[in-house]
């Protein structure tokens, strides 16, 4: 069961990685065509710049081959684990396997062509070959999406989803190429000269991809979501809402970049382009990674239109977020253990109020920690509250709380020994590691915030927040009790969204506020940092008022 859980999780996570890899390949091709203009007669991009773009294209192809290949293997592992046997013929006969295999082989082909292009970047034949391989790579995606299993409008839904994915890939791949060009421009004059031009050229490509995203996304959402209850009362709908919110944040960054590009076109002002825009693009990348993972998660959710009678009402969802007295008393271990056999039974299942109260208490007390940390962190922005910089110590307190409360059956409070529980059960192992890391992160972030020389440590926090946010978003799923699970999921999806915002805000703060303040970046950075802390405070609030439905 442990292996099955792990394989399932990796399989799901691979979906997001595949989309990112795919976006790097497709986006790099479009970047080469429209920004570097490799097919134009007056093709003039410097060889080193083309090689850089091809390098990213090849990296994307390598990542796609690895992730797609792994997906085929992991899916087989899941099948063998769930079924207790491996029906190889039946598996290889599925459209999923065949389309996945085609993508894998095409990725291998692209790796070879990209390697050739690195040696001879101006060879038109190789570029044409890369384009020829990319087209079926995009089309193969049609058999890997929700639409393929539908009974109605199957072909239209498959086509629409492929176009939607393509547009997202152009955007993300282009943003990744922009970042790569900016890094290169710090050492290369050619890249430095191309940087403002690339920003302005990419605006058109970016706007086009957003238009296609909307034109395909709206009918897809209409088909799969159906109505307002479906949008706010199901896991699928809530992920669509989250995706839209994150897209709007990403679009705001894109607008800032576009504005800086226009300023350069009109007045040849490069300050914003050189100093702010790269960091906006980094933050945009955080957001877009979140969007791609949500897109991957959507494919493992039942569409809202199929579970109308299992949807939660808007008021039930609102109830999950309504402020109330936090539960600060917990049931005893004995009460908890007494309810467990009934709670986990398939037949004669009896919901356990003690388990629900136990969980509420854990969430609410964690919320107390986070809310207090958020409040103290806000004070840290006022000079005379220097002591408030030590707010990350709250993570240490939280880790101690988690250590005692995460697994009630195990040491130190339960009857099962430390080593036996840690290495005998995956979930307990996960909790132990998480507890240890909460402690370590608290210590490290405190050092990062109080020690000016701890440069490397500073970036750990936003990176882990982004990662954690993505995990919360991709973890969104429905099990046996769709409605109850969704109500729980709605809070975790909201926290995932806030975590991604928290990550990009802190990242921007570090990049803008802690550098030269002469161009207005300092204030922008501090605002972003405060938004980040506000997001943490809101996460704390969600946990503070959390109430689990009894199921």
């Amino acid at each position, binding site marked *: 069961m*442990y292996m*099955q*859980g*792990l394989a*399932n999780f990796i399989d799901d996570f691979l979906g997001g990685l595949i989309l990112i890899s795919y976006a790097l390949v497709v986006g790099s091709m479009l970047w080469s065509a429209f920004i570097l203009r490799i097919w134009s007669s007056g093709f003039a991009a410097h060889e080193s710049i083309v090689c850089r773009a091809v390098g990213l294209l090849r990296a994307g192809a390598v990542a796609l081959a690895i992730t797609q290949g792994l997906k085929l293997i992991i899916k087989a592992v899941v*099948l063998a684990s*769930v*079924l207790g046997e491996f029906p190889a013929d*039946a*598996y290889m*006969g*599925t459209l*999923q396997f065949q389309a996945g295999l085609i993508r894998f082989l095409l990725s291998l082909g692209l790796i070879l062509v990209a390697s050739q292009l690195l040696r001879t970047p101006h060879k038109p034949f190789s570029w044409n070959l890369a384009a020829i391989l990319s087209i079926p790579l995009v089309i193969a995606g049609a058999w*890997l*999406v929700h*639409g*393929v*299993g539908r*009974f109605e409008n199957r072909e239209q839904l498959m086509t629409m989803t492929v176009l939607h994915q393509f547009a997202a890939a152009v955007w993300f791949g282009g943003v990744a190429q922009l970042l790569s060009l900016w890094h290169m421009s710090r050492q290369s004059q050619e890249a430095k000269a191309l940087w403002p031009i690339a920003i302005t050229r990419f605006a058109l490509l970016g706007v086009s991809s957003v238009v296609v995203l909307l034109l395909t996304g709206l009918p897809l959402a209409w088909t799969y979501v159906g109505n307002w209850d479906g949008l706010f009362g199901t896991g699928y709908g809530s992920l669509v809402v989250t995706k839209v919110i994150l897209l709007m944040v990403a679009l705001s960054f894109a607008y800032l970049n576009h504005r800086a590009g226009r300023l350069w076109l009109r007045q040849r002002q490069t300050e914003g382009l050189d100093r702010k825009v790269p960091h906006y693009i980094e933050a945009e990348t955080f957001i877009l990674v979140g969007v791609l993972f949500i897109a991957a998660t959507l494919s*493992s*959710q*039942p*569409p809202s239109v*199929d*579970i109308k009678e299992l949807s939660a009402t808007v008021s039930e969802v609102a109830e999950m977020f309504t402020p109330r007295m936090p539960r600060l008393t917990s049931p005893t271990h004995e009460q908890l253990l007494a309810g*467990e056999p009934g709670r986990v039974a*398939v*037949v*004669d*299942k009896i919901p356990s109020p003690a388990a629900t109260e136990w*969980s509420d208490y*854990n*969430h609410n007390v964690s919320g107390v920690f986070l809310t207090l940390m958020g409040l103290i962190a806000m004070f840290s922005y006022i000079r005379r509250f220097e002591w408030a910089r030590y707010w990350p110590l709250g993570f240490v307190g939280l880790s101690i709380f988690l250590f005692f*409360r995460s*697994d*009630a*059956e195990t040491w130190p409070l339960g009857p*099962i020994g430390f080593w036996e*529980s840690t290495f005998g059960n*995956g*979930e*307990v*192992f*996960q*909790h132990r*590691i*998480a507890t240890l*890391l*909460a402690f370590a*992160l608290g210590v490290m972030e405190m050092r990062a915030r109080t020690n000016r020389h701890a440069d490397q440590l500073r970036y750990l926090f936003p*990176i882990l927040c982004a990662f*954690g946010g993505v*995990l*919360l978003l991709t973890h969104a*799923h429905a*099990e046996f009790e*769709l409605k109850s699970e969704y109500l729980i999921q709605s809070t975790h999806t909201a926290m995932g969204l806030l*975590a991604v915002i928290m990550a990009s805000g802190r990242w921007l703060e570090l990049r803008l506020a802690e550098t030269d303040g002469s161009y207005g970046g300092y204030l922008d950075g501090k605002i972003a940092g405060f938004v980040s802390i506000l997001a943490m405070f809101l*996460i704390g609030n969600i*946990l503070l008022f959390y109430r689990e439905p009894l199921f």
Partner: protein
Amino acid sequence: MHQPIVFRSNKFVLLLFSICLLLAYGERLWAHAVVTESSLTQNPIQANHATTVVLFFNSNVELPLSRVFLVSKGDIYHPVQIEKGKKQGEMRIQVPALAPGEYALKYKVFAADGHFTENVIRFHVSEPR
């Protein structure tokens, strides 16, 4: 070992730590293919009569890669035969004659879009009149 009492806020802990990505993740299940209609709601199973239960899924299902179990009291699993119905998304399940009591059908189905779903349909078999 019993299933541990889960600290259900572990997702919150995940928020903080990437390493959990590589570690255990409990009994994670998808639920993409869902049952949209079941014959059990219209025609409850009669005691001591073999029955064909018909389920309709929202998505095409790969039957050779799917399994259904009858779960009886004490969570004892018995595999049951399944076959494709005539309509789209239809699955026919051969349920043997059952004594009155509480039961469940646990299905593990592989949807055409590549997602596995495990779920449970609980039902009651009444005393014969």
